[in-house]
Structures are given as structure tokens and as C-alpha cells.
């Protein structure tokens, strides 16, 4: 059974058919990339999978169980974590606090426990902080813990956001254009990091424009064009696919 299976997913925005009958699978322990020209529907597809948007048709199955109509907070609790194309760090919180929010689905203290500050609550807080520091160290941002998150450089913010998503200890990690705005050195670091995330046993679904990164880190690549899937194979096979070449380079290239 695939960790994630998407079946016949469709989404319309008025007259625009952003995603049209898309199906694909992500196998456990692999890195899968979604690529396509601008406006191909990649981010919409991501939002459908993570529950930010409801689909018009089709289903998303995580471990064979449908996620239909589940709000995104519950999908997160079921082991799916994500980053955003436009970085969405929480303002007026430190990097560490941001990552600690990531541990939310792995901790329990509610309003009453929080108000009374019981010993068990205190122990849980220590544990949350430890996990968050680990995640920060894992992405190489351990020394940024006490910095105001939104005052960090772009690349550092990306790292903190990734740590926040990892702190939830997800089974499936969705990365929406993680290399956007990074320089070459940072992109190379990101490629290594994705490799290490995979070694931890986390399955990764990635939307990315940087072809070098995609070809380096992915086991499989699905290509979207105008909301439809036109290819789904290994990076090498996709690179040779005439339809993919036509979409990316125009008819003349064939």
C-alpha cells in the first residue's frame, strides 16, 4: 500500500480548471517531485492534499484511509506536515517557539493544564522544547533558536520553517518550492538535507522549479501541465519524455 494515494482529484476556480483528474502515488520512504510550468496547478494540488482547500472531485488516501473533508489541523495530526511557498513563520515569536508550535500534534496540554501549570505540563513543555531544539539542530539552525523568526535571512527562515514541519515528526512531508529564493550553496545544502530527511524514514513530496535539485533528490517525478498529469516516472525517464520536453521548451524543440 502506498503511503499517499491521490485518485482523480479535480479543482475549479470559476472558469479555471486548476487541477483536472490527477492521480498519483507516493511510496513509503521515497522522495517524489511534482513539477510543471507556472500555473500548472502544483500548489493547488498541494493545498488539496493538505486540506487547505476542499477538492471538487476525487479522494486523497493517507495509509489507505481517506482524508476527504478533514480540516488541515486534523490532517496534520495524522502525520502530514508541510511548508509553504511563501514562508509562513509566526511573527513576534522566536525561531525556537516557531518550531515548538510544530510539536503541537505530538503534545497534549490543553487550556486547564496550561492555566494550572501542573508538574506534568511542565515536563511536557521541557520535552517539547527538547524536540524543537533537535529539529533546529537537524536543519543546521541550532544557533538561531533565540532569534526573532521574522528577522532572519530568507535562507534561515526557510530552514526554520523546515524544522517546524519536521518537529511534528511527520510520516509525509510536503515541501512547496523549498529552493525558491535560495542561492546555489543553500540549494546544495537543501539537497543534502532532503537526503537526510529521507534517511530518517520520512516520505517527501516536493513541488520545485529547480530542475537540478529535483533530478538530484527524487525517486519519482510527476509532471503537471494545465492541471493535468502528463508524465509520472523516474527522473531520467521524465527528462527524455517528448511530451514533457514539448511542454517545457515549446513545440519547436521536438
Amino acid at each position, binding site marked *: 500500500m502506498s503511503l499517499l494515494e491521490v485518485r482523480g482529484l479535480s479543482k475549479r476556480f470559476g472558469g479555471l480548471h486548476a487541477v483536472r483528474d490527477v492521480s498519483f502515488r507516493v511510496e513509503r520512504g521515497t522522495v517524489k517531485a511534482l513539477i510543471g510550468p507556472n500555473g500548472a496547478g502544483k500548489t493547488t494540488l498541494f493545498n488539496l492534499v*493538505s486540506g*487547505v482547500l476542499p477538492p471538487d472531485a476525487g479522494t486523497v488516501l493517507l495509509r489507505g484511509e481517506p482524508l476527504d473533508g478533514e*480540516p*488541515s*489541523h*486534523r490532517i*496534520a*495530526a495524522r502525520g502530514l*506536515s*508541510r511548508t*509553504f511557498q511563501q514562508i*509562513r*513563520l*509566526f*511573527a*513576534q*515569536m522566536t525561531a525556537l*517557539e*516557531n518550531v*515548538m*508550535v*510544530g510539536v*503541537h*500534534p505530538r*503534545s*497534549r*496540554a*490543553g*487550556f486547564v*493544564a*496550561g*492555566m*494550572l*501549570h501542573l508538574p506534568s*505540563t511542565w515536563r*511536557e*513543555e521541557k520535552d*517539547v522544547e527538547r524536540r524543537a531544539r533537535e529539529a533546529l539542530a537537524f536543519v543546521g539552525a541550532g544557533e538561531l533558536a533565540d532569534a526573532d523568526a521574522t528577522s532572519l535571512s530568507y535562507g534561515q527562515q526557510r530552514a526554520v520553517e523546515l524544522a*517546524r514541519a519536521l518537529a*511534528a515528526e511527520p510520516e509525509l512531508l510536503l515541501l512547496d518550492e523549498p529552493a525558491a529564493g535560495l542561492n546555489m550553496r543553500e540549494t546544495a545544502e537543501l539537497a543534502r538535507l532532503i537526503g537526510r530527511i529521507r534517511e530518517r524514514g520520512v516520505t517527501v513530496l516536493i513541488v520545485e522549479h529547480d530542475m537540478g535539485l529535483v533530478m538530484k533528490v527524487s525517486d519519482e517525478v510527476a509532471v503537471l501541465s494545465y492541471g493535468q498529469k502528463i508524465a509520472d516516472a523516474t527522473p531520467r525517464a521524465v527528462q527524455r519524455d517528448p511530451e514533457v520536453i514539448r511542454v517545457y521548451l515549446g513545440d519547436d524543440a521536438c
Partner: protein
Amino acid sequence: MRGRTVTFARSRYGRIALFLGVVVLVQLLTAVADKPFFLTQLTMAAYYTLVTAGLSLLMGYAGQISLGHAAFFAIGGYASGYLTTVDLASSRSASLVALGERLHLLVPRVDLYGGEALSFHPWAAFVLAIALALAVAWLVGVPVLKLKGHYLAMATLGFGTIVYSVLLASQRLGAADGLGSVPPFPLLGGLAVGGGRAGRVANYYVAWVVVALALLVLSNLVQSRVGRALRAIHGAEDAAASMGVDVARYKLRTFVLSAALAAVGGSLLTHFNAGIGPGEAGVMKSVRYVAIVAVGGMGSLWGTVATSAVLTFLSLRGYFGTLDDAVFGGVLILVMLFSPDGVLRLDARGAVAAIRARLTPLPASPREPGGGAAEEKHRSKGVAR
């Protein structure tokens, strides 16, 4: 050693200790200055501060505005006042009333004309009043919290207006006169909320200890997993949801919690004053609470409490005269213009830079054009933090 002292002063327990120290100091000052009557307004200010403390959590941490919190204050006050003054003696034959009397939830008392009346014990009334406020807050909160920004403000304003109108039109609740002859609220060891001038000092301490307890509970909450989730919601709602935070539920619970605190304030103040009027539910009251939170600094519990105590006291003593409402409106405008983060986060240099930047069309700073004022502001924020 000194580092440790500083850490303690900054910890929540240290701050509570400091707070209680100030409470004692103020009482001693009123004694030295021979102005014991100040304590009456200071006690009332404490109960109003419960409203603003809860509202500070709702506005500053959950990022929700409510222009209906005076209504929750009034619901708490009216429910307590009504239940402790209603006379059920004539329905003694009803089994429920008999049961209530046996359980001491209902107690006999002497009414205005020397006859015997049967009313709720203040504690029973208090529990029912808070339960009522919780239920109303939940019912109002479920649909209303789906709204954002101005729309949420309008909807809560509408709710406040409805409660005010209902109270004003209810003959049973005294209509425009409100409720009177509300008995004191007995506490442990012979202490009571209310009971006239004799207990002025005791009442003052009881009220501010209640505020201290509320502050302890709220500052615990703010520094917990829930507080973190609330700040995340305030920062980026969709990202918080993607991290597993149940946004709707957290907003609703914060709303209900702040409403319950308002109701506690309303109930206790009604016992202290031996009555309550419909003015307590008025829209201007709600605006005033929002103004106090804005002055104190969104998300700054201590700033809100300090501002609330001072402004409410001055207002109750009549220092603002007929301009009372205008003062709060004006203060709100000034804060929003010059220090949206609240007064305690503003330092003099930052304020001067901000005012200059607004009043002069040319770059005010002698340094680099444009960058100077902004940089100044940024730096002052850093210092304040």
C-alpha cells in the same frame, strides 16, 4: 546572585509578588494620605480589571476583538444579583425549591419590608451566573468567531446591544433602575465581598487577590502550549492549522474563557456595590475595555492590568468629568496612531521619532533620509523587549 534576582523578577511568580507588593503599597498610601474612600474605587477598578485581563488574552493572543464584553460582565452581575434577591418563599411547596433549601443552595433572608424571603445563596448564584455566561459565550461564539476583523467587531457589538436592550426592557430586572439590595458575598474566615464601609480595606485586598489569581492563571496559560498556539494563530492562521492547531476551537475557548472572567468581575462587583444597572452592559463600556487593552498593549497582560487600574480609578473618581467617554476615545486614537503596541512598549525617543515622522512632510531624522525614523523605531522596540 544579581542575575538570579533579575530572573525571579521577570518570572511569572516574581511579577505576581511584585504586583501584590504594589497592592499593599497603594493601600498604605491611602492610609498615610488619610484617603480611605479611595479604596472603594480601587476595589471597583479591580473587578473591571478582570474584564480587561481576559480581553487582553482574546485580543492580544488569539487576535480576536470583542465589542461585547460589557454584556458578559452584565450577565454575570445581573444573574448573581437576580438570584440572590429573587423570592421563592411562595413556591416552597415545589419539590425543586424544597430540595434547594435542604441543600442550602437556597437560604432564607429578611426582605426589604421585614418579611422572610427565600433566595439563592451567593455561592450558588455565582456558580449559576458563571455557567450562564459560559453558555451564552459558547452560543454566541460558535457562529460569530467565524467572522474576522471588522465583521467580528460588528457582530459582537450587535450582541452587546441586544443584551443592553433586553436588560433595559426587563421589568423583572428593574429596567432602567437595575437591581438593588444585593446581599454581600460571604468568603472564608468572615470575609465578604460587599457589606459597606466597615470592610473597605478587606474588600480592597480580596478584590486585588482575585485579580492576582486571574493573572497567575492567565500568565500560566500564555506561557503554555495553548498560549503558543494562540500566538501562532495570531501570526498566521493557515500555517497554525497546518501545524495541527485547531484554530476554531482555540478561538472559541479563549472567547469563552475571557467571557467567564468578565462574568466573575460582574458578579463580584454587583455584590460589592449591592446592585447593578443596565449601564454596565452599555456599548461605551465595551469600547472602554477595548481602549484599555489597546493602551496596555495587545498581548501584554501586565500592561493591560496597570492601565486598567489607573484609568478605571481616575474615571470612577470623576477626574475626567463630563469628558469621561471622550477621554477613552481620544486615548484609543492616540495609541493607535503613535504606539499600536501599547504604552509600555513605547519609549520617549521612539515616540518623538514617530511623532516627527507623522507631523513633518520632510524626513525628520538628521541621518539618512527615510531610513532614520524607521530604524529608530525598530531599535526602540528592541530595547523595550
